[in-house]
């Protein structure tokens, strides 16, 4: 039955082709070529992007001798999970993981909450100097955090509000090595990429029709209630996007965590100090003078890197839609 209909289709195709003076055939063939070329191109680019990841996975299961063996390319000859155990031991992986999960969650929730308020204010209210303050948001995106980091660092080391603490206790407070500075910055929308989140959230709220808001006012909702009950539920997709980005970027961030979260054990910091620890470990095991080879250090870093990003990959796979779809639907405009 279906074969017969296919045959008829084909006959029709040739007939139609004849009628169109060969145009149909030409078009079908060129379309087919285009599709194949596109598939090859996309496959190549995808491979380009995930190849380093695959490479790291294979390296992380290799023993040291495999790294120097020219005949071993991607499948390890001496399969081992020792690298993972060693990284766990050197960087106290589970403590770091727990801390990182907690810190990233705390920071990203605070960041998104603060940025939602600000973004909503910019999108739905008219007030004097609005343009000026929005220019300030842009400025906070543009200024590299390094420009002001020295000043911030000194200020949090000798923290004071208008000299109040100094007047009472005679001393300034050293907030360095506690989480307080960074939390304060997040509340003040000055955390990692906060400006970007404000911008995105404002963009979203601007597109909500005014009638919705007016209907809420007519029905007796106050300003706060309108925000909480009407606007927030609508904004779920963009808030999830921002939350996911904040979470993931906070997870891998080494700059702010190095600057402000000095004492808290976090995965990115453990990762950067991994090679040093490896050297110490080898010295303590085999006596002084024993150094890790460059190749093995890299294998350890690859393993550590994988262990750092595996939770992120899982989050990404589960919430992939949340990362991208809402962003690409909200329509970013200047």
């Amino acid at each position, binding site marked *: 039955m279906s074969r017969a209909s296919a045959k008829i289709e084909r006959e029709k195709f040739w007939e139609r082709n004849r009628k169109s003076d060969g145009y149909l055939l030409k078009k079908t063939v060129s379309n087919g070529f285009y599709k194949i070329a596109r598939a090859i191109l996309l496959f190549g680019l995808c491979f380009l992007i995930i190849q380093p990841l695959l490479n790291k996975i294979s390296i992380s299961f290799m023993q040291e001798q495999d790294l120097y063996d020219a005949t071993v390319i991607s499948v390890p000859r001496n399969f081992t999970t020792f690298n993972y155990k060693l990284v766990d031991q050197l960087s106290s992986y589970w403590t770091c993981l727990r801390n990182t999960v907690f810190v990233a969650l705390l920071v990203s929730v605070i960041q998104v909450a603060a940025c939602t308020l600000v973004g909503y204010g910019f999108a739905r209210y008219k007030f004097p100097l609005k343009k000026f303050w929005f220019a300030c948001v842009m400025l906070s995106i543009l200024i590299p955090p390094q420009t002001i980091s020295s000043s911030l660092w000194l200020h949090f080391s000798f923290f004071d509000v208008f000299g109040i603490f100094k007047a009472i206790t005679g001393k300034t407070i050293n907030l360095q090595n506690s989480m307080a500075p960074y939390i304060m910055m997040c509340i003040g929308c000055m955390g990692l990429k906060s400006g970007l989140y404000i911008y995105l959230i404002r963009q979203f709220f601007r597109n909500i029709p005014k009638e919705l808001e007016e209907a809420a006012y007519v029905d007796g909702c106050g300003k706060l209630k309108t925000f909480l009950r009407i606007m927030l539920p609508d904004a779920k997709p963009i808030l999830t996007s921002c939350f996911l980005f904040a979470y993931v970027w906070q997870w891998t961030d080494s700059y702010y965590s190095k600057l402000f979260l000095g004492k808290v054990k976090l995965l990115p910091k453990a990762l950067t100090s991994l090679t040093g620890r490896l050297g110490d470990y080898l010295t303590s095991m085999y006596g002084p003078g024993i150094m890790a080879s460059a190749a093995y250090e890299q294998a350890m870093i690859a393993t550590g*890197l994988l262990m750092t990003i595996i939770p992120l990959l899982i989050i990404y796979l589960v919430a992939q839609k949340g990362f991208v779809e809402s962003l690409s639907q909200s329509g970013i405009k200047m």
Partner: protein
Amino acid sequence: MKAKKKKTLAQKNAIAGYLFILPFIIGFIAFLGYPLIESIQMSFSEVTVGNGGFSMRFIGINNFKKAFTVDPEFNRLLTESITGMLYKVPATLVFSFFVALLLNQDFKGRGFVRAIFFLPVILSSGVIVGLEYNNTLLQGMEDVVKESGSNSSITATLQSILDTGGMGSKFFGYVFDILDSVYDIAIAAGIQIIIFLSGLQTISTSMYEAAKIEGCTAWESFWKITFPMVSSLILVNIVYSIIDFLIRTDNEVMEKINKTMSMQMDYGFSSAMAWSYFLCVMAIIGVVSLILSKKVYYYE
């Protein structure tokens, strides 16, 4: 008792608006505005950290002088990273626009391909970039491969062929640099692809249909419809790419500034370097957006 004055609706709205953006105002003044002014001050002075505080002594433009004339690295790093940006940003833009066009088409497994292309957004941030950057093992392996086999890389061979043709070899040098760093570009293009894709999705299909009926080829409708419709996003993306390229963790100038601050504790000098760098970045962004904003087409 004084009678309460009734406020107008506009005033009420203004107050509510200010209450909503209050966190930002406080944060901006405390953690950006004030430190910014102070770091300007620092860049003109010598900072000494003592017990229970720090003090500044005004020394004029000595820090800037030191950065540009005394320091052996700063000039070189600055010019290197700016020239690097000048060819990497356009390459990133073209690449991300091209990929966004591809990903906007309908084909099997589109979701999967999209997922892979956006993977760099989460993987090329923070500490990971820095670690990838000094991957000595890969470098070593590459060298070994180059020595053992007489077959050098495709781009190098092509380059030697084209070079003998006597055409502008410097230009080709840049082109091949881009080809060699296509991985870096693909990794850095995640957000730009998302932004372009979002723009492409807002173009209504009826425009293309109308163009097709009028006899437009695909090539024409690309230049007459697609390109103008996303032109405003090109500006957004250029600005984003410049910033992203210049302040990412593996940027050498940034590394130097960080090192000067945290290792040598020379706050004045590091502020001076950071400010000269920042002013360069702002100048570039300003010039680019001034030129482009006149050519951008806004569709409302």
